[in-house]
């Protein structure tokens, strides 16, 4: 095995990922190759330096800050609040629609009552009473009499 292949295995050996046979071959090579032995020691020290670095930690209020942020976000998306907002919008829309319909009816009915067509409608009503009498086989006079009571 040449030195290049051993270099990759040196790295793997630092992570204990060589099988026993590969490990023995590497150790044998390192005992005979001064250049690779020096390289291996340097790689090992590099790894040791990294492992020995202090583990930096967050500030004491770290989780509180996140929970506060989540709560403020959750509040703006509270289902009850969303329901109240939707109900309020629906109510306002209903009032507006009712208002429009009521206004429309008010003006249209006023116009209907004042128009000449309405007089004609009353005549039609009398005529219809006449038709009613014929259909029900009772006299028109009886109907008038009943209406006058």
């Amino acid at each position, binding site marked *: 095995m040449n030195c290049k292949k051993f270099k990759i295995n040196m790295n793997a050996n630092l*992570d204990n990922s060589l099988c026993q046979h590969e490990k023995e071959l590497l150790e044998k090579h390192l005992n005979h190759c001064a250049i690779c032995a020096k390289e291996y020691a340097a790689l090992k*020290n590099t790894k040791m330096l990294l492992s020995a670095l202090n583990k*930096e930690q967050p*500030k004491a209020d770290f989780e509180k800050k996140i929970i506060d942020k*989540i709560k403020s976000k959750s509040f703006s998306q509270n289902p009850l609040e969303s329901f109240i907002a939707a109900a309020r919008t629906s109510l306002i829309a209903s009032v507006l629609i009712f208002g429009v319909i009521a206004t429309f009816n008010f003006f249209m009915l006023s116009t209907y009552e004042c128009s000449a067509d309405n007089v004609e409608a009353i005549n039609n009503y009398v005529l219809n009473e006449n038709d009613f009498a014929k259909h029900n086989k009772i006299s028109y006079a009886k109907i008038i009499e009943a209406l006058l009571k």
Partner: protein
Amino acid sequence: MLDDLQLIKFAKAGKLEAFEALIIKYKNKVYSIAFSFTANHSESDDIAQNVFFKVYLNLNSFEEKSAFSTWLYRITVNECYNGLKKRKNNILSLDFEINDGETSSVKSMIEDKNGNIEDSMLSQEIQLQVRKAVLKLPDKYRMIITLRDIEELSYEEIAQVMKISNDKVKVWLFRARSKLKNILNI
């Protein structure tokens, strides 16, 4: 004590206490990854806060196919890269300046210990030199060194977190350590 999946189940149901327990369990690791990558406390705090906030907002998309920690570290790595983009677009705001030719103290310390620094407590000065050297690595090498040598994740976890193959993990680690060794001049 509840495990991660149980805590997630409660958190999904709106129990903030369960999510807080997850934060407490993983905050040091997430913060430490961010700090190893950025070497800046303020930036690491922002990254870690964003990570947990995003995790909370996306809890329902966690399908439990992988460990929660893997999913969390993956979001952390993405957030580190996102922070890097912002930083490159704005200003370089590290907690310390990076100067060349400052690694002599590391080399002399190793020589003092006859080349064996195992179980050594590193002085503040040495810590600083090593952090500076890590910052000089390309992003992907800095991340892989952070995950393996500082945070001690397994090859498999690193492959999942960085979305690369196991073989690539080995190659990148080899290159990253070799580069770092050269930067540290040891």
